């Protein structure tokens, strides 16, 4: 794992770079998009982004939990939770990027397809 963490600032920078709005406006728009997604999920409605994934809202029934420190039983109230279901496109892209890197790391004789094509 490379351990880098991206934040809103990196997303704004990408919008600034790709779209060519000012940095301030890029930041405002990133915030607006994230807020709209949050707002929709909060209202209980699912958000589906094609080729990325879906944010779904699930209802959880009441159940009995346990305080792991004291062993005491506590009721957990019924609640709504957000679940992210990645699209097949996203899953395949991540799997492909990682297995390619893995092959390259473990095999000195492995030449990536792009390099082979260029030779």
């Amino acid at each position, binding site marked *: 794992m490379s351990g*880098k963490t*991206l934040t809103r600032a990196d997303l704004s920078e990408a919008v600034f770079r*790709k*779209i060519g709005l000012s940095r301030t406006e890029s930041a405002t728009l990133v915030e607006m998009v*994230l807020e709209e997604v949050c707002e929709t999920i909060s209202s209980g409605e699912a*958000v589906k982004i*094609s080729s990325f994934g879906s944010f779904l809202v699930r209802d959880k029934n009441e159940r009995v939990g346990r305080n792991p420190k004291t062993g005491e039983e506590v009721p957990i109230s019924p609640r709504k939770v957000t679940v992210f279901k*990645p699209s097949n496109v*996203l899953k395949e892209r991540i799997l492909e990027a990682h297995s390619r890197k893995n092959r390259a790391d473990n095999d000195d004789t492995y030449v990536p397809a792009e390099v082979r094509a260029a030779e």
Partner: protein
Amino acid sequence: MIKSELVQVIANRNPHLYQRDVEMIVNAIFDEITEALCESNRVELRGFGAFSVKNRPPRTGRNPRTGEAVEVSEKWVPFFKPGKELRERLNEA
């Protein structure tokens, strides 16, 4: 809500932008998250949540119908953990 509806909402609120620009902005955001995940990076968006990649080591699985053992190769899967604010807002009402 699907992506085109999200684009529409944002475009309505920004009459100075073309709808296709808004579409590019929305795409840029999700593409950037996708690329970060492809490189095993985390994406942390306070209030919203965090995206990361989880590793599933190779294992010996079983075909539930035949009971036959099958090798399941190593996998990397995207994961989203909702942020505190999103969790709380969802349970406010």
